[in-house]
């Protein structure tokens, strides 16, 4: 009799455990596939909200739309590998911008890539668009190349803050992305612009 009671209570406990486990499983499975949750809280929402922004930001940095898209794919691929971020209440927008600027900056810093861009980026873009005024466009591509050249030589944080700001991010978004105080953004931005101008003038002098 006593044994049966023990057995029965054991079965109940095991049953509860199974129910708990199933609930846990359902909760976990719901995290990434919850299509009805608002944009920004699941992978699809984040992709929809940030894809264009990330592509534009990276295009600013690398100056080549195909390359920008490839790098953006890399950003979202990395995000897809980190389901735990979705449950930690993190600012995923800042995470996405941080990874994107890191990837973009590494791309333009790479010596090989820089050489490749210098030779091909402007020309490819012009050919792809089938422009009617290639001389003017070539000049524009040269300007674009110059910006990337300057960014690749700047201090990482300065290059990133310029890219983020001129891609349209607010001070608050930049602060979250770079993990610095929002009150320091004005100073950091002014400093970065000064460095940019100095390098720009230096480059201009060298070309004369």
């Amino acid at each position, binding site marked *: 009799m006593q044994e049966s009671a023990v057995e029965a209570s054991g079965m109940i406990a*095991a049953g509860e*455990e*199974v129910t708990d*486990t*199933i609930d*846990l*499983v*359902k909760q*976990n*499975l719901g995290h*990434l*596939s919850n299509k009805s949750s608002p944009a920004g809280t699941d992978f699809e929402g984040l*992709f*929809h*909200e940030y*894809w*264009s922004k990330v592509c*534009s930001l990276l*295009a*600013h*940095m690398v*100056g*080549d*739309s195909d390359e*920008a*898209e490839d790098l953006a*794919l*890399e950003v*979202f*691929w990395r995000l*897809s*590998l980190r*389901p*735990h971020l979705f449950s930690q209440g993190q600012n995923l927008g800042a995470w996405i911008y941080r990874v994107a600027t890191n990837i973009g900056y*590494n*791309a333009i810093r790479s010596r*090989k890539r820089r050489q490749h861009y210098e030779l091909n980026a402007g020309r490819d*873009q012009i050919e792809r*668009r089938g422009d009617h005024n290639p001389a003017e466009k070539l000049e*524009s591509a040269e*300007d674009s190349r*110059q*910006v*990337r050249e300057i960014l690749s030589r700047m201090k990482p944080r300065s290059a990133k803050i*310029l890219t983020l*700001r*001129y891609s349209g991010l*607010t*001070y608050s978004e930049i602060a979250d992305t770079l993990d610095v105080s929002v*009150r320091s*953004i*004005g*100073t950091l*931005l*002014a400093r970065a*612009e*000064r460095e*940019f*101008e100095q390098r*720009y003038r230096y480059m201009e002098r060298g070309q004369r």
Partner: protein
Amino acid sequence: MRLNLRKHLSEGQLRAYEDNELDHISIGHVRQHLVSCESCRGKAATIYERAGLVGEQFERTSTENLYLPDGPSRNRLEVYISSKEVQPMFKKFVSRQPRLVFSTVLLLVLISSMLAFPQVRAIATNFLGLFRVEKIAAVPINLANIPDDISQAVPRIEKMLADDMVVEEFGEVYEVESYTEASAAAGIPVRLPYSLGEPDKMTVQPGARLTFTVDLPRMRAILDEMGRQDVELPQLLNGQTVTAEVPASVTAMYGDCNEEVEGYDPDGHGKSNSNCMVLIQLVSPTISAPPGLDINKIGTTYLELTGMSAEEAERFSQTVDWASTLVIPVPNYSSSTEVLVDGVQGVWVNQPERGDNSRFMLAWVKNGIVYSLSGRGPLQEAVHIANSLN
């Protein structure tokens, strides 16, 4: 940002003022101060002129693409994620953190092995089955056929199974100076291709062991979520263990290989340098599992989970010796072929990329050692390199 009206304004304050990023009170203070301070007005003019110059330069870097998030872009991401999962599979298989591949394989093995067990059968607690990779084969898979819930479920299931899985890593990757040192560390006579000369870098990755213990209630819940309620799990399976052993591996790098992109960081940047060639070699990994396993059933189920129909899986399964073959799924945008390499049958997987810069992996097993050569270039060149192993 509160301001002292008599104190000169900082560059940061003026810059934030220009961007309308100050609070209302601070805006009023800056405005007031600028009216009365010529020095700050001059400073502000310089800052705004500079910002104008930088803005103008950045304006020229914008591209004309719209980058709409729907449709093609989303599809491209799907293909990209799939290619990342499949293409570096071998690298992950021998890398420091083989969790994803291992746990996926183990999960599949486990699920399938349950299918093979008659409920009434007593299950021995010791491992009797031992499988060793002796051959490598490629199986073409159509990504479109893979059920969404399977591909999405794998990482989540992996997370849930973390408690049941023990990964023992026998050390961090380290660089070695010579092939003698590499051979001693990995316990194999390391072979290098003389056609490539001396490697630029050689590393040893100590081995790892992964042990999975079946937690029946959890497994039932997972199968339920995967829509596989048809799979019956015998109670005796609870507490059983499956073990995978990956021996130490030696990686030889030639050319401009960034360590981050060549497999030591599976989360790392995916772009590889075009002149980088990587040769990995290790003693064949083994998987130990409970006895009585219907290995053909495992293989067939594995193929079904990668998107094949039951008939196709059955047909392919009959052509493979599952007890000794590592089957690499190759997505439909890549191609694969069997080749004679290093005197044995190997597999060539080719993944086209933009331009003519295709990426390849050539894998084969000889004398109990698995080799993988990856890089960019044509088949003939890869085979030539592989045939020059001394």
